[in-house]
């Protein structure tokens, strides 16, 4: 029968029927339904299987605290496991599957776990699967994972996108029940910037779920009036489907807005969810409360649910879980469910109240001083066994049972900054402690104020206080008359009888016995009990389970609940998709790219690109017929050595250093001297860290007395700038020096090879003489190119050849490389990439990132004498530590394989022939290796102990990981032109 459990009334839109499928069977619901309410309307109580024992389970709550009704929503790549049916808005065509069952929900073969329950007690896997150890990974763990657990991932890439964003407000109001709405009205009218965040689809909180909370007006109407007014205020931002999931330092809150989850799929280019980081000057927690159950034997059958949820289903969604219901309560609130459902024509089989002094009813039977001992029904509740106050027992038929053990304020967000809630004996629950800093205030049920009158007034009053803190004048508005019933509760946690299992934590299948066992085995701290039993873990974080377990532990320990305390509350309040945290930072959008000025041209040439930090650099330029990268790289290297090549070196950091004391500043930053560098000259510089180890190398060109341009390695562009800025501001604030990065502003190309000058003479304006005499090695100057375009020229060389670096404003970089290629045709100019650049510098013995790895001293790099002792510089003193000065320390050397056909691999270690290969005998390691077309074999740079004295000797090059064990000759690190003649022609 279609929707046989649908009642009259409710806030669903009966004019908009929707069809959906659960486990392949089609059903109908209405707009405004959740998946859970629609399934209940269709008399579907069985919605899932439990985590460990595969017990049949039905929906337990009507909100985000749901432990049981978890489904795999949607299909294909959009399939999402562990989706709470209570939070899933129904849409036309929705498909959902039950999870953690095989082969079907009604017949689950894995339910044999339930029969083995005595072997599956708390911590069973720590005790049971101990031997043989090798079986754990291959057999036990896969088997346990198969049998236990929640939903399955699709294994496919998430097709949806997620946004992230930032919001700012004076007052963030979390929750829109009576207290949240009263606060929003107060703050909105005061003109403050307000955000009202509600995790539900609509505003109103319990006002939507209850009857007669307001005495002179229907709750819905008041909500509608207030929202109408708030919508008209430009200073109020109303956010539904938005969960505030965490409170962080300094008034920062995390929120997820589910903008498209109620649609079959997000519209094109629109996100599925948005992760908001909210900066709130003040916040008000008005998140309400969560009902807690009473525990008894077999209390987990489909149909057993929270009494408040039962009421919400009836009042808001016009649904009952069954036509015959019973209530088990220890407080007056449970009776409210019976009244509401009775008024809707549902048969109330009985209200079972553990207290002696209970409200009476003429409409239904109230059994005071009674307790439920057990329940029956395999796939859904059929009856409960009740012990009456006279000790006799009675079986009561019912298809659903509402449990009310009292309400727990939703204190979570108030505790995310390590706050601990405090026990309030009067209302038998934890309430938030005062935060002290008043950044977060608490109102309504979240503060333990359970009457509607109290909630309304506390919301408004706390908003006034929060705004007064901000010097905003605000007043409590006129609020509707509302019920103001006191809390009448006598704590009753679990029924102490029977030998069966009574569930505390439905999601993790943790029973009273499990907690008793954990306690018996010594896990007495609440944190230990949680971890041993898994109570309070997983998607619901024990929202309906924790307090009951704490009460039980207190009883076992003979302590008060206050003495037992709670576990730590941590974000997120409810589960957040990983995709939401990732936002748009996925795949190629994981981080921004940096493109060189010649990128477009290089791409046209078919260059292969490599990521260097965020930069994309041309790695090599394959030409027709080349099938292996080595062919391209060898060709590029030989072309540079033979004639001329060009390479985009824009990525090297460029720092503009100006000021009257610029030279003195650099003299302190670099370990070698810079004070006397003439204008128009470049000098190689090495900078050390405070600890005396090498930080970076590069050049500084003096363009004027008070103006230098420093270059850094690509990787260290930012660290070097930061390093220099730190010393400028903190150590030498008295120096007149100003720094700014100009890396992006100039397109810079290396032009290297014997014909470099001839080529450049074709593009540099004739007014500038770059002959060897006029512009010698290490000269620099500001010039113009191609008809008056301002440019900079540096005669520096990384390759060991006659070479220049030429810079033009970045926008002209593309045109310049094209012009160089055109003008260089007569010299067979060859563009070269980072791979050839690497080979050229290894051949020349120049250190790069592999050698400057944060562990190298100047002496290791063969630059010990560069550390000037005539002046003070950063790192000079600590570079002089005896350990760093020892003669037999590592030194940079060159290596060649004795057999020229063998290949040296970077990362290999150096051993003396005959020694056992182990760390104790280690002589050093290979830092950089390449095939040198110039030498005609593999070559390498390496750090070798006492290496300077071992040139010409033999060493064993070993890499057990690569099965490498070859003999090599130790050489000078300079494989080409050790005297530097080629640089100076």
């Amino acid at each position: 029968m279609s929707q046989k459990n649908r009642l009259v009334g409710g806030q669903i839109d009966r004019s908009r029927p929707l069809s959906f499928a659960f486990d392949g069977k089609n059903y109908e619901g209405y707009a405004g339904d959740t998946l859970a309410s629609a399934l209940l309307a269709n008399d579907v109580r069985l919605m899932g299987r439990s985590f460990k024992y595969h017990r049949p389970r039905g929906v337990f709550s009507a909100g985000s605290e749901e432990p049981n009704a978890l489904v795999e929503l949607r299909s294909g790549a959009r399939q999402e496991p562990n989706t709470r049916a209570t939070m899933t808005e129904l849409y036309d065509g929705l498909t959902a599957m039950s999870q953690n069952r095989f082969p079907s929900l009604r017949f689950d073969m894995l339910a044999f776990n339930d029969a083995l329950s005595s072997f599956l007690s708390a911590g069973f896997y720590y005790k049971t699967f101990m031997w043989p150890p090798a079986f754990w990974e291959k057999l036990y763990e896969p088997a346990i994972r198969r049998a236990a657990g929640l939903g399955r991932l699709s294994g496919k890439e998430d097709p949806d996108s997620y946004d992230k964003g930032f919001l700012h407000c004076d007052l963030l109001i979390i929750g829109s029940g009576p207290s949240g709405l009263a606060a929003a009205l107060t703050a909105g009218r005061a003109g403050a910037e307000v955000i009202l965040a509600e995790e539900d689809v609509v505003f109103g909180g319990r006002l939507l779920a209850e009857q007669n909370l307001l005495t002179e007006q229907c709750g819905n109407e008041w909500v509608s009036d207030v929202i109408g007014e708030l919508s008209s205020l430009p200073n109020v931002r109303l956010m539904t489907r938005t969960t505030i999931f965490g409170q962080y330092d300094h008034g920062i809150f995390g929120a997820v807005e589910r903008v498209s989850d109620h649609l079959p799929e997000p519209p094109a280019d629109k996100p599925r969810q948005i992760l908001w980081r909210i900066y709130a000057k003040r916040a008000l927690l008005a998140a309400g409360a969560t009902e807690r159950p009473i525990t008894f034997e077999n209390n987990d059958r489909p149909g057993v649910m929270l009494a408040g949820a039962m009421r919400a289903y009836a009042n808001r969604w016009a649904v009952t879980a069954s036509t015959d219901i019973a209530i088990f309560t220890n407080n007056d609130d449970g009776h409210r469910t019976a009244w509401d459902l009775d008024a809707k024509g549902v048969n109330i089989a009985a209200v079972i109240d553990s207290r002696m002094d209970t409200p009476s009813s003429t409409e239904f039977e109230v059994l005071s001083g009674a307790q439920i001992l057990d329940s029956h029904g395999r796939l859904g509740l059929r009856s409960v066994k009740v012990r009456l106050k006279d000790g006799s027992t009675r079986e009561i038929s019912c298809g659903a049972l509402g449990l009310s053990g009292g309400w727990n304020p939703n204190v979570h967000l108030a505790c995310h900054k390590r706050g601990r809630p405090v026990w309030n004996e009067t209302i038998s629950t934890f309430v938030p402690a005062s935060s002290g800093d008043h950044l977060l205030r608490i109102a309504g049920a979240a503060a333990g104020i359970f009457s509607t009158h109290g909630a309304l007034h506390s919301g408004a009053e706390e908003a006034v206080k929060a705004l007064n803190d901000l010097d905003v004048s605000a007043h409590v508005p006129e609020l509707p008359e509302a019920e103001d019933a006191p809390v009448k509760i006598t704590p009753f946690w679990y029924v102490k009888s029977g030998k069966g299992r009574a569930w505390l934590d439905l999601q993790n299948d943790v029973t009273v016995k499990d907690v008793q066992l954990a306690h018996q085995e010594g896990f007495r701290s609440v944190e230990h009990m949680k971890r041993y039993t898994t109570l309070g873990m997983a998607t619901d974080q024990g929202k309906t389970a924790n307090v009951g377990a704490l009460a039980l532990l207190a009883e076992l320990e003979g302590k008060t609940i206050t003495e037992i305390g709670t576990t730590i509350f941590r974000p997120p309040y409810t589960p957040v998709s990983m995709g939401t945290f990732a936002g748009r930072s996925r795949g190629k959008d994981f981080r921004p790219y940096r493109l060189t000025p010649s990128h477009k041209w290089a791409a046209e040439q078919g260059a292969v690109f490599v990521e260097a930090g965020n930069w994309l650099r041309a790695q090599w330029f394959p030409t027709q017929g080349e099938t292996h990268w080595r062919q391209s790289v060898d060709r590029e290297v030989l072309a540079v050595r033979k004639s001329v090549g060009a390479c985009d070196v824009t990525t090297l950091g460029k720092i503009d250093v100006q000021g009257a004391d610029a030279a003195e500043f650099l003299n302190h930053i670099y370990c070698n001297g810079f004070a006397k560098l003439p204008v128009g000259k470049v000098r190689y510089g090495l900078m050390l860290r405070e600890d005396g180890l090498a930080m970076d190398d590069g050049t500084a060109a003096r363009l004027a007395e008070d103006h230098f341009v420093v270059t850094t390695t690509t990787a260290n562009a930012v660290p070097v700038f930061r390093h220099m800025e730190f010393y400028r501001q903190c150590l030498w604030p008295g120096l007149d020096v100003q720094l700014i990065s100009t890396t992006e502003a100039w397109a810079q190309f290396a032009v290297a090879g014997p014909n470099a000058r001839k080529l450049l003479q074709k593009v540099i304006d004739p007014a500038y003489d770059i002959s060897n005499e006029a512009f010698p090695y290490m000269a620099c100057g500001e010039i113009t190119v191609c008809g008056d375009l301002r440019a900079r020229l540096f005669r520096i060389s990384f390759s060991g050849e006659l070479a220049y670096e030429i810079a033009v404003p970045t926008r002209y970089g593309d045109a310049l490389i094209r012009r160089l290629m055109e003008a260089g045709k007569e010299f067979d100019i060859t563009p070269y990439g980072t791979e050839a650049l690497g080979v050229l510098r290894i051949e020349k013995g120049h250190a790069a990132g592999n050698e400057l790895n944060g562990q190298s001293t100047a002496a290791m790099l063969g630059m010990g004498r560069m550390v000037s002792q005539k002046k003070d510089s950063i790192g000079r003193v600590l570079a002089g530590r005896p350990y760093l000065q020892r003669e037999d320390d590592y030194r940079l050397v060159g290596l060649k394989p004795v057999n020229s056909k063998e290949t040296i691999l970077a990362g290999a270690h150096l051993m003396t022939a005959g020694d056992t290969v182990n760390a104790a005998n280690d002589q050093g390691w290979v830092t950089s290796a390449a095939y040198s077309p110039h030498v005609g074999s593999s070559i390498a740079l390496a750090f070798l102990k006492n290496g300077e004295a071992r040139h010409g000797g033999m060493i064993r090059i070993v890499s057990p990981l690569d099965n490498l064990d070859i003999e090599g000759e130790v050489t000078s690190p300079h494989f080409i032109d050790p005297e530097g003649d080629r640089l100076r022609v």
Partner: protein
Amino acid sequence: MSEQLLAPLTALGNDTPVVVTIGGITICENPDLTIASLAARKDRGAELHSKLQADTKVQLPDPGKMMFAEDVAAIWTGVEQWLLLAPISSHPDYAAEVKTVVADSASVTEQTDGWVVFDIAGNNLIPMLERLCNLNSKALSSGEATRCLIEHLGCLIICRESGREFTILGPRSSAASLHHSLVTAAKSIA
């Protein structure tokens, strides 16, 4: 020697600036600004202020602000540091021009091609900016300018008209990534 002048490319790598319209939002690449950075030499801030004001009428702004004088805009970027922006057509060698004015009272650095400039216009840009940067963009009014991160990139945001017109300066080498972020955000809210 070379006969032909070199032809510039915009930061997005084209001959002409890219203009994208999404819903009511227009994102324009603006290659027509020249930019110079200005940093006062030690203890010479007052001299710098008076020289600039006397010669160019430019008043250097306080933190978070921007000042206009004729066709020049000045933005505060750090302690005693500013960026000066002007049309490239009327200031072809701007850094040198500024240096002539300020002489030794400040260090001037050519920064025109250090940046990509995007002008954004629309009836309500706040939802777009909320998805891009951690700024209370709703509270920004005309003439305010501030540094902030957009998708890991250090950018400058200039409010030209509250809620409706903004200019974003970002690192030029990441122009394509920044543009992609702007377009994605615009599509999200369009």
